[in-house]
């Protein structure tokens, strides 16, 4: 592996790890607040899948970095400006409809990205994708069912779900951006060219929103910055809570 490719792969694995840990943490915030017990447990399980994914990506990043850092250093010892996750994933959980709409956007996205990552020439990235694909199928069925149920539900649930769709739409454009690092990896058959996936994502999401009697927003505004470390204020607050124990008690084991 050339240095340029190696460094790009390290960056890429870190980004994918950041995406996973941030969304996993956001979902985990629902534990003990779910609308009913089974749903609470379901959310906990989805959070675990994402946190597990983060561990695999970070472990690989640490292996590539080969500078003594571990998966924990990647998760707990980097500040918000070092994080490279997509903004969509860091937005606070909001109400239940809001979280399910975000989840639907993410699940449809991963159901398109992961099969491509499975084709990666990088064996580790491909192996992680192979595990994650199976899990994402279940995540998507759940978020789709909930968006249908809430969108085509009561007047109140419809109103809240539509509001979530409108508020989150502007964050979805960033999901399909490419920069030099990702382009280099895509050109070398290692990373996924996400720029070509927006059409299919839009089609699949629109079908579900239509069935849920929701209106598909116009592409009016777009927020970007996660991949360059420019985050919303929310990420700092989230990381503070997520990292406090690790940073207060360095090296602590129990």
């Amino acid at each position, binding site marked *: 592996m050339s240095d340029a490719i190696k460094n790009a792969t390290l960056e890429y694995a870190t980004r994918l790890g950041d995406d996973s840990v941030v969304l*996993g943490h956001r979902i985990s915030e629902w534990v003990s607040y779910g609308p009913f017990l*089974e*749903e609470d*447990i*379901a959310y*906990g*399980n*989805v*959070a*675990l*899948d*994402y*946190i*597990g*994914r983060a*561990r*695999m990506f970070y472990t690989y990043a640490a292996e590539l970095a080969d500078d003594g850092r571990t998966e924990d250093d990647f998760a707990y010892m980097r500040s918000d400006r070092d994080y490279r996750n997509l903004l969509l994933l860091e937005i606070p959980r909001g109400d239940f409809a809001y979280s399910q709409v975000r989840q639907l956007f993410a699940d449809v996205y991963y159901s398109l990205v992961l099969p491509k990552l499975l084709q990666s020439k990088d*064996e*580790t990235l*491909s*192996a*992680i994708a*192979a*595990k*994650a694909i*199976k*899990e994402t*199928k*279940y995540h998507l*069925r*759940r978020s789709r069912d909930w968006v249908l149920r809430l969108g085509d539900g009561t007047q109140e649930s419809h109103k809240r779900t539509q509001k979530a769709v409108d508020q989150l739409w502007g964050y979805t454009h960033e999901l399909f951006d490419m920069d030099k690092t990702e382009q280099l990896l895509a050109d070398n058959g290692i990373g996924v060219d996400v720029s070509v996936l927006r059409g299919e994502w839009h089609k699949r999401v629109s079908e579900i929103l239509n069935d849920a009697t929701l209106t598909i927003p116009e592409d009016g505004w777009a927020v970007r910055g996660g991949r360059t470390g420019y985050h919303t204020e929310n990420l700092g607050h989230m990381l503070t809570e997520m990292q406090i124990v690790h940073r207060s008690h360095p090296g602590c084991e129990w």
Partner: protein
Amino acid sequence: MTEISLMPQEQYDRLQQRNVADVKELWDLLDEVKDPEVPVLTLWDLGILRDIERDGGSIVVTITPTYSGCPAMDNIRTDVQKVLNDAGFNDVTVKTVLSPAWSSEWMSAEGRKNLREYGIAPPEDADLDADGLTPDAAALCPHCSSRNTRRISEFGSTACKALFQCDDCGEPFDYFKKI
């Protein structure tokens, strides 16, 4: 008429692995290690114990997680280490591999039977739906063998299970998902 049971090739290959002379006793030893979340399944039954290699005194055990975030993996690693250490093997490494991704197909016949007796429906006790996912009804109830059951939640007490309820005996039960 006696039924001739056919063993899938994968199961057969796995069984052969156990019979290699210098590691046979190690496989037998590790049959003591159970999945901490489902204590009727050994690591072997669950199919997460992938390989044991022995080079003189040093032993490398290879395991693979069921689901990405399975929180039992850390315990399992410690348990494997402990059982081998207690048996006098001190140079033990437990390695985790991701590929090939774990499949519920790897579960042993014995494991499936034990699972059902324990009150968890094994993967083959439900027919997958058109999307290849857990169906929303008709998993076989491990308590009363009824098919009059329905799915209550996509995810059960752990990521590897879904939650069902039986409408005949009224009992809820976990179904071990097919992946």
